[in-house]
């Protein structure tokens, strides 16, 4: 046998496709048959797609809402600057709690990669009270810190009222209140010469801060100038915390050098922190929290899938006549199962698209309410209809197989 003859012999089976008497229906016609099947039972199609729409909508909303609030938090962090580092006394090698030397701020400011640095100093033995008649131990958890005029800028804080300490007021008994401290003391404005009784002396309130996102411990603190603290309360100029702004590109190298710079004698007694990292972790945790809700969405989807399978089984039983007719008209078993599979997949895919819209709307409503940016992750645009399609295929498998197995004569006898 020649090679050519052998070749034609091998190729022959492919010719079956062009058999003029084969049973065939182009895929797009099959799809339109499936669509027509759905159109003739609109209410039923709507209700069974609704289950899928709710399930997918819930999942899209969960993902969208968490992405939106995460994006909001990250945007906030970025606006506050990600180059803030903190230096505080840690535990020494021997287990004693460390003390930062009074030269620490000056040394840190000499680092070439540091833009600014500002410190707070704990003022012990001083409590802040509304008046001398309040018992001295009822401090309401408000701490007193001495600081310099640069603190506000270093922590990206904002004033709610009044002004911050400056090179003049830091020498006198004036005080700036953290947001929480102000509300504990019931002081909401700086007008009219309001005073608080601080460590046995009347201090005039000159400013109130807004909550500080980067370090919320500052909110329950009141601030006085270091010179006045040294004079009145013998406060030691050893910082309890130093806020350092490094060059944006040098944050990590700077953080590695900070301990040795702050206390060259005992660098292991210095703890260096990146507050933004903690906030970012919190943003990530906000995303994690959604797993449970996603699980609930998945349950809704499962119920939707069972609903579709159920409705398709009923549909197959009801449409035995149609199935028998199609078989008589020349449909193969495969054509029948493909038709029902396509109906089921189409139904669920439409549900998926509707769910995507529902979820996006829910996210939008939430974002508008929270004044956050509205974000639906890009993958959801593909994943939602694809999930619907897949669920529909799976739910349709059994009904489709059942439809194909029906004996055509039995089917015709049914009506």
């Amino acid at each position: 046998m020649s090679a050519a003859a052998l070749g034609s012999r091998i190729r022959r089976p492919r010719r079956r496709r062009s058999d003029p008497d084969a049973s065939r229906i182009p895929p797009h016609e099959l799809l339109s048959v499936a669509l027509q099947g759905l159109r003739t039972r609109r209410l039923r199609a709507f209700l069974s797609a609704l289950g899928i729409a709710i399930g997918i909508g819930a999942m899209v909303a969960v993902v969208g809402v968490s992405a939106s609030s995460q994006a909001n938090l990250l945007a906030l962090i970025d606006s506050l600057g990600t180059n803030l580092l903190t230096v505080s006394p840690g535990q020494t090698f021997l287990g004693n709690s460390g003390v930062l030397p009074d030269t620490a701020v000056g040394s840190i400011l000499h680092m070439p990669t540091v833009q600014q640095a500002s410190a707070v100093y704990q003022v012990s033995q001083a409590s802040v009270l509304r008046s001398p008649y309040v018992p001295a131990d009822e401090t309401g958890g408000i701490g007193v810190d001495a600081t310099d005029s640069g603190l506000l800028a270093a922590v990206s804080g904002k004033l709610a009222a009044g002004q911050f300490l400056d090179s003049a007021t830091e020498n006198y008994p004036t005080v700036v209140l953290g947001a929480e401290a102000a509300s504990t003391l019931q002081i909401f404005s700086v007008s009219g010469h309001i005073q608080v009784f601080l460590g046995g002396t009347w201090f005039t309130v000159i400013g109130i801060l807004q909550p500080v996102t980067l370090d919320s411990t500052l909110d329950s603190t009141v601030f006085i100038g270091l010179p006045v603290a040294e004079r009145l309360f013998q406060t030691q100029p050893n910082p309890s915390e130093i806020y350092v702004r490094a060059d944006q590109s040098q944050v990590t190298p700077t953080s590695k050098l900070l301990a040795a710079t702050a206390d060259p004698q005992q660098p292991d007694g210095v703890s260096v922190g990146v507050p933004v990292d903690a906030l970012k972790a919190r943003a990530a945790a906000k995303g994690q929290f959604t797993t449970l809700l996603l699980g609930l969405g998945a349950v809704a989807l499962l119920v939707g899938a069972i609903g579709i399978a159920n409705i398709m089984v009923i549909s197959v039983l009801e449409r035995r006549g149609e199935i028998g007719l199609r078989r008589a008209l020349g449909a193969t078993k495969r054509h029948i199962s493909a038709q029902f599979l396509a109906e089921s997949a189409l139904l669920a895919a439409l549900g998926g698209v509707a769910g995507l819209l529902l979820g996006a709307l829910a996210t939008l409503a939430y974002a508008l309410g929270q004044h956050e940016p509205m974000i639906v992750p890009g993958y959801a645009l593909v994943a939602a209809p694809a999930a619907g399609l897949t669920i529909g295929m799976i739910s349709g498998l059994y009904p489709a197989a059942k439809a194909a197995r029906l004996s055509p004569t039995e089917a015709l006898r049914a009506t």
Partner: protein
Amino acid sequence: MEPVLKLREVSKKYPGGVAALRDVSVEISAGEQAAVVGPSGSGKTTMLTVLGTLELPTSGFVEVVGRDVLRASDVALAGLRAHKIGFVFQGFHLQESLTAIDNVANGMLYTGARARERREAARAALARVGLAGRLTHRPGQMSGGERQRVAIARAIAKRPVIVLADEPTGNLDSKSGHEVIDLLHELATDGATLVLITHDPGIAAGFPRRILMSDGEIVGDERR
């Protein structure tokens, strides 16, 4: 004439032991018009479904348009039905949601013909059964006789070799019944083979060949 339908010693037993066909042997030639007559339960519908390849016999040999049915695949038999066989049922089996022309065009859905070709053929077939003015009517808007004519148009639109009709007048009054039978006779003179099942000897009398059935067996085969 070459036989287009051939049954040899065909038996069909249903689960439970009911024998619908017992050793039936018959040959029907191309272009022949045959009525299968018998009381209900005589096996005539089973014979039609076997001839139409909708059902396979328990034993025996079936050949339809030259194809050995028992050895053919589901796909091959479906192709045979799509192109060569037209069915007319007692219950019409029209889709209520579709117009007459769409019902007829859908009769060729599995032939691979394009939508436009199908509609053209459907229009022509409906004109032939006298429903040219009813193209966009739905089954619910038509009388029983008209509906059966739509079903006949669906069966003949693809120009089948064989038309199989199962009690096509069963749901009709006698006037429309006669019209339907006349129409089938007229259409079959085109060369298509017509096999019609009826329990009505009056209708059967109009056919050149009458196959008489009783208890799953052929008890008479008369020709005029």
